[in-house]
């Protein structure tokens, strides 16, 4: 003969275990969602910074080409100076980005070369973003190229400005 109180105990144990399981499952899901949103937020910040960096290089290159008015040496000087300033500025953001849980390193290389039709300026920008917790990393490259036709260059000694076709 089963006692009444035993049924009550059994049913309540079953109910509590069900409730506890549901709660724990929900907790795991919420925790996963929180982590996902945190990572998404960091990825958005990193991507936005990298986009800004590439866009800034593009703007600097356009400004340097337009402000030099065909004077290649001035253009080259302005470009290198402004890009260095940009790199210096973005390197100062390190602390702020670390507070956001990110480490981003920016790099660039500028190559000047000439061909029979004109002069080419190529900037290879590279950014590497890493989550401080080591959960994700983003590596992006951008190849920014401008072609200056030979007839628009005013300088006669332009070939001497890049004897080895590179800088």
């Amino acid at each position, binding site marked *: 003969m089963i006692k009444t109180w035993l049924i009550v105990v059994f049913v309540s144990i079953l109910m509590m275990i069900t409730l506890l399981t549901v*709660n724990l499952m929900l907790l795991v899901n919420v*925790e996963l969602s929180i982590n996902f*949103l*945190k990572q998404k*937020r960091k990825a*958005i910040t990193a991507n936005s910074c990298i986009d800004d960096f590439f866009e*800034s290089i593009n*703007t600097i290159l356009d400004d340097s080409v337009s402000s030099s008015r065909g004077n290649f040496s001035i253009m080259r000087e302005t470009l290198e100076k402004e890009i260095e300033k940009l790199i210096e*500025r973005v390197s100062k953001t390190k602390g702020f980005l670390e507070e956001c849980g990110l480490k981003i390193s920016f790099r660039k290389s500028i190559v000047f070369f000439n061909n029979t039709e004109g002069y080419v300026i190529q900037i290879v920008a590279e950014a590497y973003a890493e989550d401080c917790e080591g959960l994700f990393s983003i590596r992006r490259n951008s190849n920014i190229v401008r072609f200056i036709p030979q007839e628009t260059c005013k300088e006669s000694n332009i070939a001497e400005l890049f004897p080895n076709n590179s800088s």
Partner: protein
Amino acid sequence: MDFLESILVIILSFFLVIPVVVTSQYLGLEFKLLSCIDEDLRTEVNILKILNQEHEIKNILDKLINFLDSNGVKWVSIELSSEKYGKTMINNERILIGSRGQVRYVKVLKITSKDVLYLTIGVRND
């Protein structure tokens, strides 16, 4: 015997209820945290849009305050600093920080060819 049985049932139920109550409370807190992170993410994305559209500090601040107020974000302070324009700090007098003074921060960075803009928005934790 009946008395002892009832006591046993009550004690057993009590020990079973405790973990359920604790996990429920923790779940409530986690849901609150989730909604805060979701709100911060949406705020950050919209701030980035504003920063991409506007370049003047005054316009940025106007649009930012308008966006925060219209979306019910309980912002406490806005700190905007840049190399070019220096530091600007705005406090929201309408939002009072509680005795615990819990404020979370939304941080946004905008890099341009001429400047770097650091934006920190303090949002009250409810």
